[in-house]
């Protein structure tokens, strides 16, 4: 089969590899009809996630048709159309029993090594380094899915791939980020990063009753998409701290979401330290959020952090009695409820897609996504579509919106800028 393989920093290749086989009785083999590149795949692409090996198959957002099931699989049948959660969960351990699916005890074959780093290991993940099991990912024509009775959700008739594909990661991840804010009536949520997870976090925060969502980014098309989702937008190039204070009546946001993670831009100090390996992550956004969050507020972190952070103002967090919520998404917990939101028309997750390309063009797609060129926000790969979709930008309403106009719609930041 064809698969997207990792070979090093900024080096992914689409190669012929052997087809996956059933290896354990709980496995299923899925023929992948749609799969996506995740923002967190860019951390792999940028080479900042440890324990990747050359030839590793990438991808953890995928769906498709069940081709084969192992002897212990009871709920799934050949022919079922399913979306697969990015984290692999056994369904039997303490953590699965407590709905903490991404912390599953039993799915990471390399758990002991992971525990040397983190104390204890989380669940195995598709296509996300050997510290998380080294499972072959879903940017491929086929994938092996362990514990197939536990994770994959069957998709009812009448829904397109693109309506449900993001149940695999970014929709639940944005939703959990908002849920972790414990939003009360009248509350204001500030979200750093208007990538796909940030976009879903904006919409989820409103679904969960936020009074106002403020989104922070500096990529115009992403800021425009955030605005379409109802967010007030602030440019990260401005004095975010002062602007957020002003926009919240001097209180600060009730909750802050860091949907950026370990490769934040804005601090040369962190870039240098990361390059020379004095620091593994660049926590620029995290610092900003910790400072501006209101007293007693909540900091929710869906953005990926993988190692050691420098100059974290824990004193500010302590002084204000902040609550921190973070971690890999417990995807399984959100599959049913979020599928219902899609079915009921409360949200149409296709809004985030900007590119649809053939699997063979994945290397180009990674580059476009990483460089944020061509207004790229979300790439969907179609491994089996014939003829294969060409790598071209989807005609979007966005294009008709001139960038100056978007910039003008940043009233407070603009005003401050002019002073």
């Amino acid at each position: 089969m064809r698969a997207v393989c990792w070979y090093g920093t900024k080096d992914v290749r689409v190669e012929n590899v052997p087809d996956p086989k059933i290896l354990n009785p709980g496995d299923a083999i899925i023929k992948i009809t749609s799969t996506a590149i995740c923002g967190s795949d860019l951390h792999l692409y940028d080479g900042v996630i440890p324990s990747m090996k050359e030839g590793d198959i990438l991808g953890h957002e995928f769906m498709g048709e069940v081709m084969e099931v192992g002897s212990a699989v009871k709920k799934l049948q050949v022919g079922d159309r399913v979306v697969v959660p990015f984290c692999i969960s056994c369904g039997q351990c303490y953590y699965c029993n407590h709905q903490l699916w991404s912390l599953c005890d039993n799915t990471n074959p390399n758990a002991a090594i992971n525990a040397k780093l983190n104390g204890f290991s989380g669940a195995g993940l598709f296509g996300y380094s050997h510290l998380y099991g080294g499972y072959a990912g879903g940017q491929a024509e086929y994938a092996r899915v362990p514990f197939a009775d536990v994770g994959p959700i069957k998709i009812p008739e009448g829904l397109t791939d693109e309506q449900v594909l993001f149940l695999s990661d970014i929709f639940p991840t944005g939703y959990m980020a908002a849920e972790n804010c414990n939003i009360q009536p009248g509350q204001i949520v500030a979200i750093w990063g208007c990538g796909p997870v940030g976009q879903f976090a904006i919409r989820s925060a409103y679904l969960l009753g936020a009074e106002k969502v403020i989104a922070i980014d500096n990529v115009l098309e992403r800021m425009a998409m955030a605005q379409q989702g109802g967010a007030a937008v602030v440019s990260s190039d401005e004095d975010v701290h002062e602007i957020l204070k002003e926009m919240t009546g001097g209180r600060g946001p009730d909750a802050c979401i860091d949907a950026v993670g370990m490769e934040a831009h804005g601090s040369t100090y962190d870039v240098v330290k990361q390059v020379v390996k004095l620091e593994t992550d660049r926590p620029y956004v995290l610092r900003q959020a910790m400072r501006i969050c209101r007293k007693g507020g909540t900091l929710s972190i869906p953005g990926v952090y993988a190692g050691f952070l420098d100059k974290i103002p824990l004193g500010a967090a302590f002084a204000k009695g902040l609550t921190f919520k973070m971690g890999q998404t417990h995807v399984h917990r959100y599959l049913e409820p979020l599928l219902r939101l899609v079915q009921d028309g409360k949200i149409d997750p296709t809004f985030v897609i900007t590119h649809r390309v053939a699997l063979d063009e994945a290397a180009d797609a990674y580059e476009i996504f990483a460089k944020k060129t061509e207004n790229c926000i979300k790439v969907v790969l179609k491994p089996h579509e014939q003829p294969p979709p060409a790598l071209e930008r989807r005609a979007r309403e966005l294009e008709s919106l001139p960038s100056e106009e978007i910039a003008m719609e940043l009233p407070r930041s603009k005003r401050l800028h002019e002073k």
Partner: protein
Amino acid sequence: MPTRTNHLPARPAVRSGTGKKIVKACTINKSPEELFRFWRRFENLPRISRHLVSVTEISDMKSHWVARSPADNTVEWDAVIINEHPNNLIAWESTPDSEIKNAGSVRFEPAPAGQGTEVTVSLEYVPPAGKLGAMIAKLYGEEPELQVEDDLNRFKALMETGEIPTTEGQPVGGDQKTTRRKRGAK
């Protein structure tokens, strides 16, 4: 609880103060009875331990162990059960005539609030000294604690889910012989 210590050897396999000891614990969401039953049949242990080739039960108390050693060789020894409390404790050690001196025990205690069973494994072996000592050291790898933890993780997964997580045999890109250069694992 009945106790059987009738096969207790005259002197311990690993004299106190001479052995390297590894103790690891984990909590498994199963009853002590189920876990004890699996472990008491030593023949099951190669399923969870990568460095064991086979364990053959010679009698109720005595067993023959074959383990992997460097260069695809094997090392072998006999072990006897020296202490047993049903559903709670098994302790064994190599017989006095074995060249490989080692001992082990596993304890099963109910975990609080219905979380299953706390399993504590304790292994003791004579550290590297001469050829055989070096073999034993290799047996447990350069990081013996990691190996024992791996084995316990596999035991837990097998007991809780009926399978052991693996990626062995899955597809991977390129010709691994030529593409896995040194920079492969970062």
